[in-house]
């Protein structure tokens, strides 16, 4: 019996080695490391926003409106005399907050559904996969846009709208992983040994799905942040006066000519953030030795 278990462990280890699911590889990947460093910078900004920001991000100073960057206002001031730098820094909290919340919720929900779908098969599989198809029938941002629009703007509706529309990618990915894992010898053997589905899923399948889910999750944070900013840009997300990059961009449009700093810096910050997560996600994917999966790539 113990012998058997040892054997299962060995084959699983061999599988892992084959998938190069090891962080040693990751450490060698400069791409991924620099991505993570960039993310660390962002987290630092978010955590220490009150210390870093020279001004209150909401404080209006109407006699110093639309100022160009200076030592007092590193990115200048906006149409109400607020410090753009401080707003951008505080905006990190909003965007990262939305990104992490949504990705945490959707990756857990999507993974569970994907596991169930892939492992149980049958009607449950059909039902979950059709659910996935239905949500994915709304391309890109459309469904989130409508949900946020119907719920009315605000932090919680942005999170809800994105959470309700982003889970299917994980479900689909995990289901695919489960299907390929199920055919592996170690899973087959484990099933013969201990038929509890829950145990097998938890012990053997789930851990082996984590790599791709982490990769996808990292890329998804980038995605969710762009979507959230887009919702705010359209006026359906975070509302003024809260500092959010998308809504700052929107507020800057009228001043595009006279004060481009209003649109320039928040946009740059979005790019920096999204780029960091994409960079890290790409690096992670390479070090997990995953093929360029179309679905992951396209996100």
């Amino acid at each position, binding site marked *: 019996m113990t012998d058997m278990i040892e054997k299962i462990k060995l084959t699983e280890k061999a599988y892992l080695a084959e998938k190069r699911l090891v962080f040693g590889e990751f450490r060698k990947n400069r791409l991924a490391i620099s991505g993570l460093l960039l993310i660390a910078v962002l987290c630092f900004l978010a955590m220490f926003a009150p210390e870093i920001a020279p001004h209150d991000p909401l404080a*209006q100073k109407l006699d110093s409106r639309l100022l160009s960057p200076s030592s007092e206002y590193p990115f200048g001031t906006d149409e109400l005399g607020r410090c753009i730098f401080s707003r951008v820094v505080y905006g990190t909290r909003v965007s990262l907050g939305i990104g992490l919340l949504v990705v945490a919720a959707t990756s857990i929900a999507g993974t569970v559904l994907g596991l169930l779908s892939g492992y149980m098969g049958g009607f449950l599989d059909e039902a979950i996969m059709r659910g996935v198809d239905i949500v994915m029938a709304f391309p890109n941002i459309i469904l989130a846009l409508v949900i946020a629009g119907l719920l009315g703007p605000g932090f919680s509706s942005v999170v809800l709208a994105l959470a309700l529309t982003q889970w299917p990618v994980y479900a689909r990915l995990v289901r695919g992983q489960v299907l390929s894992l199920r055919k592996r010898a170690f899973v087959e053997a484990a099933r013969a040994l201990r038929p509890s589905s829950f145990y097998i899923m938890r012990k053997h399948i789930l851990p082996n799905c984590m790599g791709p889910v982490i990769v996808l999750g990292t890329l998804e944070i980038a995605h969710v942040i762009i979507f959230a900013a887009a919702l705010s840009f359209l006026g359906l997300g975070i509302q003024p006066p809260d500092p959010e990059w998308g809504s700052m961009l929107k507020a800057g449009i009228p001043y595009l*000519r006279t004060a481009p700093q209003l649109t320039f810096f928040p946009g740059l910050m979005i790019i920096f953030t999204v780029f960091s997560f994409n960079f890290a996600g790409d690096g992670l994917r390479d070090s997990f030795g995953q093929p360029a999966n179309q679905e992951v790539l396209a996100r």
Partner: protein
Amino acid sequence: MNRSFKFILIICMLFAVIGASACIGEEKDRTAKGAGSVESSQELVVGISTDVSSWYLNMFAAGDARFVWSQVYETLVRLDPDLNVIPGLAESWETPDDGRTWIFHLRENVTFHDGSPFDADSVVFSYSNQSYVRQAVLKPVQSVETLDAHTVKFVLEKPMPLPFYLTHVAWPVMCPGCLDAEGNFVKPVGTGPFMFETQKKDQEIVLTRNEAYWGEKPLLDKVTFKVIPEAATRVIALETGEVDMVIKVPEYDVERLEAEEGIQVHRKLTTFTDFLQFNCDNSPFNDTRVRQSIAYAIDTETLVNEVLEGIGKPAGGRPYSPVMMYSDPDLETYTQDLDKAGALLEEAGWKDSDGDGIKEKGGTPLHVTLIVSKGVWAARHNPMAQVVQGTLREVGMDVEIQVLDEGAISKLENTGDFGMILRSGYFVWGPYPKHFFVHHSGSPYSHYHNETYDQLVNAADMTVDTQEQEELYHSLQSFVIEEVPAFYLVHEEKVVATGSSVKGYTISSEDPWLNLSGVYHGK
């Protein structure tokens, strides 16, 4: 099948599918070519912010439709650029019984765009009880009758200064030929200097010169109104020469445009006054002290000088713009006093007991919504709303800004589902202060109920005696200052900008009258 052939096939089919759908509406796009390209053609391209969604008298001409209507349609009574009442399609008028009956003598030898004569019948047609104006504004009108081919009599339930009401371009005289035999609307037919040519939904409206115009002949051959919703985009279009004229230029662009060579900026104080409309039916605005507190908190001078670049006049609560009749020059308006504002809130029972900066009463925080339109006025109203939000926070009021479309706001206004609405002028065409009705209990949108106010309004609108009117309107203004059914912020200055070749334009105080009669392209 050869593989490269298959590959090409896929591409072709893909493009064919998308291309086929692209062709569905293709033929409609042919007329758009060559707009504004040839200067000698005397075509004026005007950037406006909304399309014309209705052309017929059964609907109100919403948004910027009135700027277009005023080229095609005309009213019986008109206003000159300084808001003096002048004859329009009616040469003269009189009231034999102090405002209950009005007789209009119509201009002769005027024809509609379809060649049919303008006469008393068309006036009766235009002010039938099917018309929007009879249903919504001129409810006291009992009948409109023809006395002869060029004389019309309006009979009212009560005395009313009717000619002022007839100046509005949204209820002009239309030709019965607008309709087909079944009574369906076909196309706009008016008497104005320009005739309707084509319209492309949400894109442009093209008008051509009415060669048979009765008044001063227009110099332009053609006027194209381009629909450009975003104010910033509209200004850019002027700067890049895509349009020759833009209306509703945002305040922050004025200084730059004035400095720009070739661009002329035209400004004039209008009858419009931005205001905060309160829902006085519900807490917290059912308490006069809360409304007064807001009046003390908001510094309208700052709004004008800092947010609107000094364009406009601070109102400080004054409901009638200085260019309006009976606007009281000695009215005592509000100046900012944050201590007093805070004290008034405390008096009303709102106190900050948990030290979070927001006042509470009975455990409920002082949280209110401020609705701002996404539409035409967004460019000026968004920053104004945020300044109001920032100021009110200082006195302990938490304001949530909601940006909505005009139509959606009307619905909320109707159901009373709001706290405050930031409004631009309302009911303020022409010099006569009809806009008092906004806070009258009888108004469907009023969320203010006060008998004294209602009585004052009724009395003021019943008299045609100017002395008496003046007194009543002065006391109405003092009443609004005292009771604050709404807080009036800024008397709006209207800004129109024109490109270098545009000559002969005079801006008028009356907002929708975009007078293009003397305009032409010159060197």
